[in-house]
């Protein structure tokens, strides 16, 4: 082992209590950051996934302008072509077709204006969680025509149960009046009130018949293997469609385009979190600055001797930095290990957040939160700590160069 490293190591343990306290402070900061960041990332993942699963999918192909205007006539005229393109695109797990129409839905007692969504039962089950959240009755099957699924809250508002009939009146793609009677086949509870209150699902075939869609749909929804792969898949799909669709009437949107609020909300949360963490690290830095400083000023005489026997100021600085970096690194390693262990425990068991069910329903987060360890969540915090502590340590380490041997020797 290098002499300097050996000296630094021994110097650290000249005052074990102080060094341990300092390292504990660093470890505490790292532990907290690892846990908090994993927790944040975990909740983002859950939020994105639940929103993607129930609402938007990872990618959608729509007619240009449909996302903003939601007008009946902006359709994807030939969904099967898009479907076969998606089928040939590597990385796409599943896809489905949807069509939406704002309509008046009346039961015997009540009338509400809501969105009627036409879905392809078999394909939909692979893309969204709709089939899994059915609470009463059953999911749509292939041969169904005038059957409907609706949210529990909507069923309550309309005062209908399984087997009851609903009258649907809306406007077709061509502006004609669209009317039908559907029977409630099942109710679902997605956990997101807004969704459960505002939509009913009917088979796509039936939808296309009554709304005069002439085979068109509004959205072709695709689910990729993972969030990370989406940009690449999007590019491929865009290129293929461009070759096919000469008039440029179709656009490919990813989940960020489809839910701009979600990603911005995440950014906001992440940035405010990082500001908090920086403040915290700053407090820690000042807390440990004294240890580093004292390590220099207590030993003025010692440094005087070292300089008198020919140690260069450069080497002294190096020695001091070695001491503080060793302490920091030990603290960080301990912090990361402890942080990972704690996070891992909660990743397996989950954290129940009591008194939060309202917030949870608004954002569609499950009531048990699972932090998620990832390379980023484990490294961002400790890297910040390493940087800030390093700069803290620089001050005393540079200060030592100004010592003059004679003065230093005479100090007590």
């Amino acid at each position, binding site marked *: 082992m290098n002499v300097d490293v050996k000296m630094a190591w021994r110097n650290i343990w000249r005052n074990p209590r102080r060094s341990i306290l300092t390292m504990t402070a660093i470890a505490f900061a790292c532990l907290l950051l690892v846990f908090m960041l994993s927790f944040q990332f975990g909740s983002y993942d859950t939020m994105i996934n639940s929103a993607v699963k129930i609402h938007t999918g990872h990618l959608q192909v729509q007619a240009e302008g449909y996302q903003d205007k939601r007008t009946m006539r902006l359709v994807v005229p030939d969904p099967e072509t898009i479907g076969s393109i998606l089928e040939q695109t590597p990385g796409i797990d599943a896809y489905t077709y949807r069509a939406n129409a704002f309509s*008046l839905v*009346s039961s015997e007692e009540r009338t509400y204006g809501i969105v009627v969504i036409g879905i392809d039962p078999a394909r939909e089950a692979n893309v969204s969680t709709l089939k899994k959240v059915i609470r009463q009755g059953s999911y749509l099957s292939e041969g169904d025509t005038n059957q409907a699924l609706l949210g529990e809250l909507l069923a309550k*508002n309309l005062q209908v149960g399984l087997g009851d009939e609903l009258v649907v009146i809306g406007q077709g793609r061509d502006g004609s009046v669209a009317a039908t009677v559907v029977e409630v086949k099942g109710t679902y509870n997605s956990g997101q009130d807004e969704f459960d209150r505002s939509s009913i699902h009917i088979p796509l075939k039936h939808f296309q018949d009554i709304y005069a869609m002439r085979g068109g749909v509004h959205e072709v929804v695709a689910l990729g293997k993972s969030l990370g792969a989406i940009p690449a898949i999007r590019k491929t799909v865009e290129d293929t469609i461009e070759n096919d669709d000469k008039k440029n009437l179709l656009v490919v949107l990813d989940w960020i385009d489809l839910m701009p609020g979600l990603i911005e909300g995440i950014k906001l*949360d992440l940035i405010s979190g990082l500001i908090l963490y920086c403040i915290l690290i700053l407090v820690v830095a000042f807390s440990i600055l004294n240890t580093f*400083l004292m390590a220099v000023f207590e030993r003025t005489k010692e440094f005087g001797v070292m300089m008198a026997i020919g140690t260069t100021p450069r080497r002294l600085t190096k020695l001091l930095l070695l001491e503080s970096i060793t302490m920091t690194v030990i603290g960080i390693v301990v912090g990361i290990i402890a942080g990972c262990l704690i996070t891992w425990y909660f990743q397996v068991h989950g954290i129940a957040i009591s008194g939060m069910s309202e917030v949870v329903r608004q954002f569609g987060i499950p009531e048990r939160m699972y932090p998620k360890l990832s390379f980023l969540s484990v490294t961002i915090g400790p890297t910040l700590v390493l940087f800030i502590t390093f700069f803290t340590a620089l001050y005393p380490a540079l200060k030592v160069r100004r010592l003059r041997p004679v003065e230093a020797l005479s100090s007590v």
Partner: protein
Amino acid sequence: MHLQLGWRNIWRNPRRTTVIMIAVVIGVWSMIFMGAFHRGMINQMVQNGIATLTGHIQVHFKGYRDDPAIEKSMAEPKVVQAVLEKHVPPGARWTARVRVSAVASNARHSGGVTLVGIDPAREAQVSFIGEAVTQGHYLGPDDEYGIVVGEALVEKFETKLGRKLVLMSQDTDRELASRAFRIVGIFRAEMEATEKQFVFVTLTAAQRMLKLEKGISEFCIVLPDRHEVDEVADNLRAALPPSKYEVHNWRDLLPLVDAYLSLFDTFIYIWFLVVFIAMGFGIVNTTLMAVFERIREFGLLKALGMKPWWIIRGVLTESFLLLVMGMAAGNILGLVTIFALSGSGIDLSAFAAGAEWAGISRVIYPVIHAKDVTIANLVVFILGLLVSIYPAAKAARFTPVEALAHT
């Protein structure tokens, strides 16, 4: 004399004292500032919620909250009105509304909205709409066919001032009632969702359209002081026959905001604790250093007959001075920051969509809350002294002989 001794002792090493004080100052500053920032955020959330047609207290027909349908309206508002006039404190304002879900449509679009029939003069004193109209004009008392809609709705429907908008809703006979209105005013609200959801017509127009006669959906009351809510609500509950009416306060009406309130409280206190732990390490370490440097001194004092308790007191006095100075500076700095920002606020427009999604305002004005400031200071002060007991006890335990032999 203790104070003087402590004071001189901490300035024996000014650099060390300054460094640890900076740690305390940053810590306290961040507690005060973050506390005020979050308090401001949640306060605005509450205020927005209350101004967006919630008010402090609402009176409905029994069962309306569960099932806000037209047949759950109050047919004899006069009864409630008389009770209100008797029981609300002076300075309180209230209004009556018709509120039903409806479908709005024009030639190009249709969509779901909430139709609100208002008494224009009274409503203006109760909710945000009185001052929110940016184009055209607010409803007059006789605006039989006038409608005020949000800017986002206008964009969505591709319409403009002076154009027609048809509203459809279920009337009291369970028939579909519809009526054409002309857009006379366009309002802007803090949240885009509000602009898309609410359309306002006059109370009489709504009543006629829905064949309600004199019936209304809700009474909304705003009190001069938010803290009287429970008392007034209880009085109203006692005065109104419970078989026919229900009274709710804003906490019942805005469960999401209520949940946020308690969540933010917990969050702020956890933050206080975490910051304290971070600086606690520094306080212990620094005090320990100060103690160990002076082993000989403590030994000498003890040899001269100083009781251990006095030594503990001496060391604690030093921590006390350190903490008090750090806290004073931190508080001043925190208050100055908040004061400087209270004019312009903290602008989150760069994340407008995110703020909207999270339900917070675009500009946050930090609010100083006496409770938060007190708790922050108490946490630092009490825990600060507690952790200093360790080095103080160490100092008290040196035996004179060992200590004097120490070099």
